[in-house]
Structures are given as structure tokens and as C-alpha cells.
């Protein structure tokens, strides 16, 4: 059974060669996670989300990024540098509602990216831990909708 907190280790534990397309997919997911982490970090600094929520989401994105980075390096791929600054993030920090909507957009795209990854990756050993991250991002969508006062399941 995969316990909470074990997923990063499980992702990293298989230090064997992986197909290049898989490494590219993991690298793109890592960039996405770092963008999310940077967004919540900015929100925390600027008060653009309630502090407990911003802190929790930032920390969770950081855990996701760490797990994927360990997995990449274990497979011989150097982790990419930090993502380019996002102009849309800077604009969203003008209000709490604007930031929550921006973050919800990032989370929506992350969920779609993980679904795509899970259907295309060839190395089946990473599917379960990445699925656990996918379910986490789906929970982040609920947390942000709650913050916005919107229906929690988007319907």
C-alpha cells in the first residue's frame, strides 16, 4: 500500500533508464508544479489568499515538485531551471478574487496535464504516485472554489 508521504520515494526509487518521452513528460510536470508553488508563495507574501490556505497549497506543490524532481534525477535527467516569471501572476495579485481565479486556472490545467501524462507514460511504475498528485490537485480545485464561494464541484 502506498502511504501518504511515500509517493516521492516511490517516484524516485526506480533509478533505471526511462524512455525519453517519459522524461520529457515528467520535466513538463515539474515545471508546472514549480509554477504553482511560485504562485502560492507570491500569494502568501502579498496576502492574496488566506494565509493557511496559501501556505498549505504552497507546501503541497513543493512536495509534488520534490517527488518529481527526485524521480527525474534518479533516471539521469537533470531537473530544469525555475520557470519563467508569469505576467498573469503579477496581474492576479491585485485582489484575492483575481488570484484565486488565476490559481484555479493553473490547477485546472494541472489536472488535465496529469490525466494526459497518466495515459501516455510508458513506465508504469510512476503511474500510481502521479495519480496521487492528480487527486491532490483535484482537491486544490475544491479548496479554491470554496475560497471563491462557488459550488465545490464546479456544478
Amino acid at each position, binding site marked *: *500500500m*502506498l*502511504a*501518504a*508521504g*511515500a*509517493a*516521492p520515494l516511490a517516484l524516485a526509487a526506480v533509478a533505471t533508464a526511462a524512455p525519453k518521452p517519459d522524461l520529457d513528460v515528467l520535466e513538463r510536470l515539474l515545471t508546472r508544479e514549480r509554477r504553482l508553488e511560485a504562485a502560492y508563495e507570491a500569494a502568501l507574501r502579498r496576502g492574496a489568499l488566506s494565509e493557511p490556505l496559501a501556505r*498549505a*497549497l504552497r*507546501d*503541497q506543490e513543493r*512536495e*509534488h515538485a520534490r*517527488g518529481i524532481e527526485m524521480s527525474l534525477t534518479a533516471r539521469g535527467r537533470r531537473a530544469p531551471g525555475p520557470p519563467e516569471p508569469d505576467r498573469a501572476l503579477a496581474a492576479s495579485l491585485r485582489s484575492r478574487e483575481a488570484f484565486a481565479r488565476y490559481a484555479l486556472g493553473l490547477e485546472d490545467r494541472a*489536472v488535465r496535464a*496529469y*490525466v*494526459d501524462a*497518466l*495515459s*501516455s507514460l510508458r513506465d*508504469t*511504475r510512476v*503511474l*500510481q*504516485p502521479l*495519480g*496521487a*498528485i*492528480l*487527486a*491532490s*490537485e*483535484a*482537491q*486544490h*480545485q*475544491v*479548496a479554491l472554489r*470554496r475560497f471563491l464561494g462557488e459550488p*465545490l*464541484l464546479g*456544478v
Partner: protein
Amino acid sequence: MAGSLTRRGALGAAAVVLASCGSSDPPPRTGPRPGSGAGLLNSILALEHAVVAAYATGAGLLRGEALRYARVIADQEREHVRRLDELIRGLGGTTARSRTPDEYARSFPVLHDGADALRFAHDLEERLVRAYLQALPKLPDAELRRAAAEIGADEGAHLAVINVLRGRPAAPQPFVTGTL
């Protein structure tokens, strides 16, 4: 809460629900090739049927926002049933049938109030998350994995909603594994 459903009780009940799903159905004489994923999806379908029945049972104890969300979640679980049904038939399989409400009721724990109903829902949603995650590496093709991933994400969101209804953070942990 005195007399309310304990976590141990809910887990035991959830295990009974899972163990009893489809166990008396006769094995198919013909059908999909071994390893097609149909058998795996069928075991999840049996669990989904049980979860739909559990929401119907729990709805009688819920009020207000909790009742409203229980109905929305139950509708989405029925949609999962339809999707799994279609996938299994597409693989040439025979789909697991839903049991009668009485049969399900006998395998569910006694629920005294809304808190019990939400605790039971939480444990069943965890079980669903785990079932979809465990299926991912075993499903042989991209379309089936995509379906399992999409539905697994839905179950993660359901778990978050149940968390909120129980007065807890929506997203309490970074890796949602369905660990019971």
C-alpha cells in the same frame, strides 16, 4: 459521539461492502481476453454500485448543504457507473450488476446521524481513490488509463468535499492515495 459510527466500524463495513461486491455472480464462460482490464474495471464497477447505494442510504440522515452535495456526488458516481459499463462492454465483458437496496443495506454499518453518514462516505471515497490509483499501472491501454485517471480525480474531489462537510480542510495532504 456516543453511539455514532467509529472509524474502525466504518472501515470494517467498507471492507464488507467491497468483499461482498459481485462475489456470488457466476464467472463468465466467454468474454474478454485475460489482461484486457475488464475484470479489474468490473471489480471497481461493483464498488461504484455499492457507493451509489450508500449515498442513497446516507441521504436520509443528511440535511442542507450536506444533502445537496451528497446528491451531486451520487449523480457523478452514477455517471462513473455508466462510463465503466461502457468500457467493460467495449472490451467484450459482462458488467457487474447492482444488488438490491436490501442486499446493500445488510452489508452497510448502522448509521445513526449525519456525522455517521459523512464518515462512511469518507471511507468509501478513500476506497474508490485507492481502487482507481491501483488500477492505473495494471490497465493495458491509454484509453482505459485516461478513464481511470479522470474518474480518480473526481473521487479525490469528492473526498475534498466530504472533508469540508466534516469541518476539515479540503486538501489536508499532498499525496491523496486513498490510504485507509
